[in-house]
């Protein structure tokens, strides 16, 4: 029992239909430490986690948990051993109450029947311990993502776990919520619980983790104390090449002609948009910064005709317009890559080619009949141009990695030769390598004269790519940064200006 490590995985090997996805991987986590597992998409992180949680069985190697060798063959078994995963998509039941979500499958019983009173009491206690005061009898879906995430954590604490796995648990949280989560992680740590932490956001890794294990192409790169690595070193090790150009890409100030593509004046819509001005010149990349709920996505939706403005005016190429439907905006040469590519972007069961041609049916069809060959040739062209990694254009898009799915969506819009592209969090949830390629693409597009509105929660991304940055706060303009004024600090200042607190970064 007196082992320094809570988890030791030795020589883990796993094959899928003769392709080795994990090769002799060693992975160790100490008791009470926050350990980050890093690697690009496809590096083997999730396979390793799935072996640990009993979803997959390993082909070779040994797993020791708390000093004993284990062979979990189901998630239930892994949970019983004290390994609790908290997934990227929240894996709870929205219709059931908060309390029930914490206790389901291990209900407190009295005389064989579930004792609801006791469950409500206990659930309240556990959440209070985490600093959350909510009505545990209400259905889970009446609370936001952050609370749901906390409920998932409460559940794993209740299960009395010794190790909690957080797989991209922060990807849907805003900065404040991430801080709340981090406080909970610190609390768990002080109780001796180990945390296996996976996140695409590098600043988070450096803020919360004690050590980092890096995987690449299914093999172990190494294990390092977090304090010994710089951000650049970490990325270099993950992508296996020099990452200076990714992380330290310096923005260059470009000269942009004073020719306006879009001028939006005092746009108001509902409670979210309370009078926003936005100008975009031809070939300009304008960043839209602000906290979640500041009106970024809402503004984009109005520009694209999904939602409607209550007042204000939008001019495109000097002509006042007002789109009632996205169709009209598309006809006008506007493209919109939405934030949630799983829900709004891709059609999972259609092929890469079909996904690519779907908004451009006119170009590939005659009298409503689709010309498959034409669609394929367009798809081939863009797969090559954007270096989309796919076995073929006939592959189902759901089998592609997140970064490549994003590229297909970009290609879909590019194939229509738009004048203006709205990109809402284009690099969310994709790995560093793919991210760089998407950013390259943004620059390429703008140099061809396409105007771009880039919405992003990552200030660095905005600083690297934008000619101008418009900062929103509470549905209004908080300020505009231009040229040499653009820096992360200044964005943060503008957002924080007033009584808003900013966490993270």
């Amino acid at each position, binding site marked *: 029992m007196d082992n320094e490590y809570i988890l030791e995985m030795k020589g883990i090997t796993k094959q899928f239909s003769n392709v080795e996805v994990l090769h002799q991987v060693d992975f160790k986590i100490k008791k009470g430490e926050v350990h980050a597992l890093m690697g690009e998409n496809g590096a083997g992180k999730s396979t390793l986690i799935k072996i640990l949680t009993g979803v997959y069985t390993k082909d070779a190697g040994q797993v020791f948990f708390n000093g004993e060798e284990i062979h979990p063959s*189901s*998630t*239930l078994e892994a*949970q*019983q051993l004290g390994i609790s*995963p908290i*997934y990227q998509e*929240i*894996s*709870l*039941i*929205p*219709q*059931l109450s908060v309390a*029930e979500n914490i206790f*389901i*499958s291990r*209900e407190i019983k009295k005389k*064989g*029947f*579930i004792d*609801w009173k006791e469950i409500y009491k206990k659930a309240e206690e556990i959440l209070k311990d985490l600093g959350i005061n909510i009505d545990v009898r209400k259905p889970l*879906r*009446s609370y936001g993502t952050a609370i749901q995430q906390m409920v998932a954590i409460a*559940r794993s604490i209740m299960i009395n776990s010794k190790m909690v796995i957080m797989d991209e648990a922060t990807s849907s949280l805003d900065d404040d919520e991430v801080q709340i989560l981090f406080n909970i992680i610190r609390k768990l740590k002080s109780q001796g619980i180990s945390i296996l932490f996976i996140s695409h956001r590098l600043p988070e890794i450096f803020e919360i983790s004690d050590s980092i294990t890096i995987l690449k192409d299914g093999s172990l790169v190494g294990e390092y104390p977090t304090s010994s690595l710089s951000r650049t070193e970490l990325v270099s090790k993950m992508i296996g090449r020099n990452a200076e150009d990714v992380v330290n890409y310096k923005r260059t100030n470009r000269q942009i002609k004073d020719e306006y593509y879009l001028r939006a004046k005092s746009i108001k819509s509902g409670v979210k948009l309370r009078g926003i001005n936005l100008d975009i010149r031809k070939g300009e990349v304008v960043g839209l910064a602000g906290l979640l709920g500041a009106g970024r996505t809402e503004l984009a939706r109005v520009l694209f005709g999904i939602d409607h403005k209550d007042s204000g005016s939008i001019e495109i190429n000097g002509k006042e317009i007002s789109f009632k439907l996205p169709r009209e905006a598309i006809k006008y040469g506007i493209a919109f890559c939405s934030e949630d590519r799983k829900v709004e972007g891709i059609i999972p069961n259609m092929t890469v080619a079909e996904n690519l041609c779907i908004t451009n049916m006119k170009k590939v069809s005659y009298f409503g009949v689709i010309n498959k060959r034409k669609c394929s040739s367009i798809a081939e062209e863009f797969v090559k141009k954007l270096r989309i990694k796919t076995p073929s254009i006939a592959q189902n898009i759901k089998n592609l990695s997140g970064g490549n799915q994003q590229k297909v969506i970009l290609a879909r819009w590019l194939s229509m030769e738009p004048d203006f592209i709205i990109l809402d969090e284009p690099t969310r949830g994709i790995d560093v390598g793919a991210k760089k390629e998407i950013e390259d693409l943004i620059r390429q597009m703008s140099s061809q004269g396409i105007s771009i509105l880039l919405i992003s929660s990552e200030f660095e991304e905005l600083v690297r790519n934008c000619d101008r940055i418009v900062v929103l706060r509470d549905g209004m303009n908080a300020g505009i940064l231009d040229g040499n004024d653009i820096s992360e600090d200044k964005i943060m200042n503008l957002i924080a200006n007033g009584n808003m607190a900013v966490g993270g970064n």
Partner: protein
Amino acid sequence: MIRAKLKGNGAWLAVAILVIIPAIVFKEKFFSLTNLLNVLRQSSMIGLISIGMTCVIITAGIDLSVGATVALSAVIAAMLTSRSIVLAIFIPLVIGVTIGLINGVIITKLKVVPFIATLAVQMAVRGIAYIITDLKSVAVAEDALPFIFIGRGYLFGIPVPIIILVIAAVIMIMTCKRTTFGRSLYAIGGNEDAARKMGLRVDRNIILVYILTGLFSALAGIILCSRLGAGQPVSGSGWEMDSISSVAIGGTLLTGGVGSIEKTMAGILITTLIGNIINLQGDINSYVQKIIMGAIVLVVILVQKRTMEKEN
């Protein structure tokens, strides 16, 4: 009134209205004991099936094989009455369980969607009922008095089928509310993938829920056979739809995860009371009843949809 519906007890409110208004209009005719018991006895068989159906629908499934199961169990019960009354009850129940097991295994192991799986089973079961009877009605043995008692008898002045329904409902309400199995049905219907990751025994419980429905359908078949004094291979056709609409009218969401057996019981009462009012009216064509039921189902579904949208 719509606002009250949103609070989740709308179905019972509707039941109250359906009792009070006709009571005023028809007076003692409506309130006579025989009429009330008739209303309830009519409900009992669809009621039993709907208990199972509710559980299936809570898991986001559907069971179209219940009507055929009623027919098969009814004819087999009738055939066995001449040999042994114990067998005439026991064997149909075993058959109901087996049909449920087949449904559950096709759905969970062969991964066929419930609609198609149970549709296929429905056809097969109905076919078996036709073949073994050669499409003829099978009479219950005349000396099988205890068997006849199930459908026609009274205990303490209450028809036996009603007593069976009430007992079954109480047991299943408790099961749904206060057992791990019951709660896992809600979890499966709410988010099957999450339920699996939470370590719930998803496949086993889905199979169990179809077995329960098969069991209740067989029980309904036995009662029907006993009431009619015969097992008819064509009986129970369309009952799956009557049952599904009662579940929906009660307020259980067909999308899964939300609902209860209490609601379904209210749904059963609503459908039966409306039928009864139409009968008492006398001059309304009984086919009109179908149209009214259709309209009610539609209204209920629309209200549900509005509620969902509001919550989001």
